[in-house]
């Protein structure tokens, strides 16, 4: 199955059996591709997973195997090794993760094909929620986050990625992270009959948009965003320290500016394009371009629906780097498959955030920081 054929399928249309067929074909093909083109990937598959080569799709499936049986790489590997499956002169862009926990950052090498397919997948997934026409876009961030290459990280990449849905763009914050009230008023006035698209990182929206709107409301300045759709991502970690839940986030924003249509998303720079959008029921959904498997830390076996574990993400996109099957460091749970009340097929799930750091014993330096 080629990527073009997958693009021909509606993103949330296939049920489990049909989707398994599609993903098994594509992910097996990608595994072979990287085995033949990325020497590091080949060494890992040979030496750890004991696959000399992958069988043909027919042989593979005749043994009852599916994409769930294919190898995965731990996501941190992209920080430790340079992994690519194309020649250097094919690489048009290198993406970096934000390296907060480690000084090292991931390096994700993109060629024209992978980069283009990331965009195509993203468009298909997001337009299932926003509709297919472009919208005036308000970005809850400062313009320098994409101008300044030094700052350019997951935040900048996210903004650029979502900018393809914009007919025009407005950065709502200045470089001091202050809300540009006049600019916002103008932008809304000029686009008053159009559906507005608001994008930003969860924490930025709360800290620099919501809190500011609350203050403005006290002095009689109000904005009506009832005709807007908001997409936010980047996780809840910083907000849980302020004890803001998803429901509260929705309620409070609705209270202050009438916005109703709010969607979280889950995604990572290592699998750009394959994002997981939150539906009206508050569930993250895997599209036809990707899947999520939750694994048991004791033996990496596949957990059942409802069992928390380590999140593995699969993507049909990456051909320039071996990132089609990754074991993340996030904890999650599959909530169900094919039966979300929102009507979308495929798995729906919840992410609890980063796995908690291991409390390991012993006398190595790992914990020196705590003790000094």
């Amino acid at each position: 199955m080629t990527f073009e054929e997958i693009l021909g399928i509606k993103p949330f249309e296939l049920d489990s059996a049909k989707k398994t067929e599609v993903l098994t074909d594509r992910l097996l093909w990608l595994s072979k591709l990287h085995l033949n083109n990325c020497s590091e990937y080949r060494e890992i598959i040979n030496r750890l997973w004991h696959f000399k080569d992958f069988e043909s799709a027919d042989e593979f499936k005749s043994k009852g195997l599916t994409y769930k049986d294919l190898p995965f790489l731990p996501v941190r590997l992209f920080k430790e090794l340079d992994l690519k499956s194309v020649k250097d002169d094919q690489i048009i862009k290198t993406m970096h993760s934000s390296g907060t926990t480690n000084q090292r950052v991931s390096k994700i090498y993109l060629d024209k094909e992978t980069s283009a397919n990331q965009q195509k997948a993203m468009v298909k997934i997001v337009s299932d929620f926003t509709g297919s026409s472009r919208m005036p876009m308000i970005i809850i961030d400062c313009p320098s986050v994409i101008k300044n290459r030094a700052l350019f990280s997951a935040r900048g990449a996210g903004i650029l990625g979502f900018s393809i849905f914009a007919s025009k763009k407005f950065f709502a914050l200045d470089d001091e992270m202050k809300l540009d009230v006049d600019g916002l008023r103008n932008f809304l006035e000029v686009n008053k009959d159009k559906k507005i698209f608001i994008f930003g990182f969860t924490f930025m929206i709360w800290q620099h948009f919501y809190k500011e709107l609350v203050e403005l409301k006290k002095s009689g300045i109000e904005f009506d965003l009832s005709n807007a759709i908001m997409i936010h991502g980047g996780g809840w970690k910083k907000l849980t320290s302020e004890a803001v839940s998803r429901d509260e986030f929705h309620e409070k924003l609705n209270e202050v500016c009438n916005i109703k249509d709010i969607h979280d998303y889950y995604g990572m720079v290592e699998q750009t394009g394959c994002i997981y959008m939150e539906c009206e029921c508050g569930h993250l959904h895997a599209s036809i371009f990707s899947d999520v498997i939750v694994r048991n830390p004791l033996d990496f076996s596949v957990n059942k629906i409802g069992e928390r574990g380590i999140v593995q993400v699969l993507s049909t996109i990456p051909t320039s780097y071996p990132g089609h099957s990754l074991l993340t460091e996030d904890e999650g749970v599959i909530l169900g498959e094919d039966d979300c009340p929102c009507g979308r097929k495929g798995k729906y799930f919840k992410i609890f955030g980063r796995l908690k750091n291991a409390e390991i014993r012993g006398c190595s330096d790992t914990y020196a920081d705590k003790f000094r």
Partner: protein
Amino acid sequence: MIPMPTSLDNIDYLVGNKAILENMSKLATRPIFDDEIMEMLNELSAKLMHSKLAKNYPDIISFAFWIRKASLNNLKKRWNNKDNFYRLGRGVCFHIAPSNVAMNFAYSLVAGLLSGNANVVRLSSKDFKQVDIVVDAINELLEDYEKIRHYIVLIRYERNKDINDYLSLMADTRIIWGGDDTINELRTSKIKPRSNEITFANRYSILAIDSDYYLEKSDKKSVAINFYNDTYLSDQNACTSPRIVIWLGSRIDEAKSIFWEENLKKIHEKYTIQAVSAINKLTTASIIATKDYNAKLVNTVLDNTSLYRVEVDRVDSKLMDYMESCGFFYEYNCSDILELRDIADNNSCQTLSVIGNKDMFRELITSGIKGIDRIVEIGHTMDFDLVWDGYDLITHLSRFVSI
């Protein structure tokens, strides 16, 4: 007298107080293995042995056993065999205990006391029940030892350069129980020109198994218990925990299969791996697969994550750049003991634990290597001794007076 910084008020005293601390440099030094000190330690031993609370902590019991009279007398014999010398403490010993081995502070303190010093021990802020139990016992005991009371101060404080500076300048010996970051941090605080320092840097350790010897052993179960205690009990994260298993002898394959089968039983029975550790192990195994070691994971990734065995076709100190914990072992089939020269010729190589005859390694030790400070039987890697990490603690913490 060094001026007392105001930040000294941020010190939390577990044993002793500010006045005792300030007065410490004026105390008389004692001879090594001083009778009164030994008597006090023996009483502490009895107290801990009879403590209901301590019973649940084998590490407290081992410590109590180590400081009982008979054991101390044995130690004394090892150091009191030279005539014509007086051996006295150096003065004040400032100990920086490690964060994750609960009882280490107590061993360090005893080494300081037996060498005749007054001791300030900084404990990590991490909560260990063992620390509470031992500290309470010491406090009770010191009520009866008015003199010795002045020789022991146990403290905690948050990271603070002023306090580090003050205590370092006060010290005649500074003893830092690692790791590298902590040592580097403390070294920004000066010690006096005549003071000395002992540092325990990050180390790695290895295990060698003579397959023929192992197969002849009747009690394979106790070997597995010993192995577990040396490794999994401390998440394989102690400097003394072996990271590499070296196989020797003529029946390696047979020995391997029995050895690991027995270990797996123990691991399944007692060990629960945390998710992050499972991911770390997969990551390190993936990295080593791409390096020049011809690495091969025994079993597969989708087996149990508690035990990773990675076979390699050579061992060298560079391999230890890819060290992992929580049940991750490199394995090497060795046909000549001198193949271990490279990994042993590195001053980061600490403990060689052995299933077999320790004498096998004399050739290696005498080949002029910079590493391996101790060779012990399996199960004893964590046993504390006054010779540690290549240092004779009594000698380093005391001075000779020649007449």
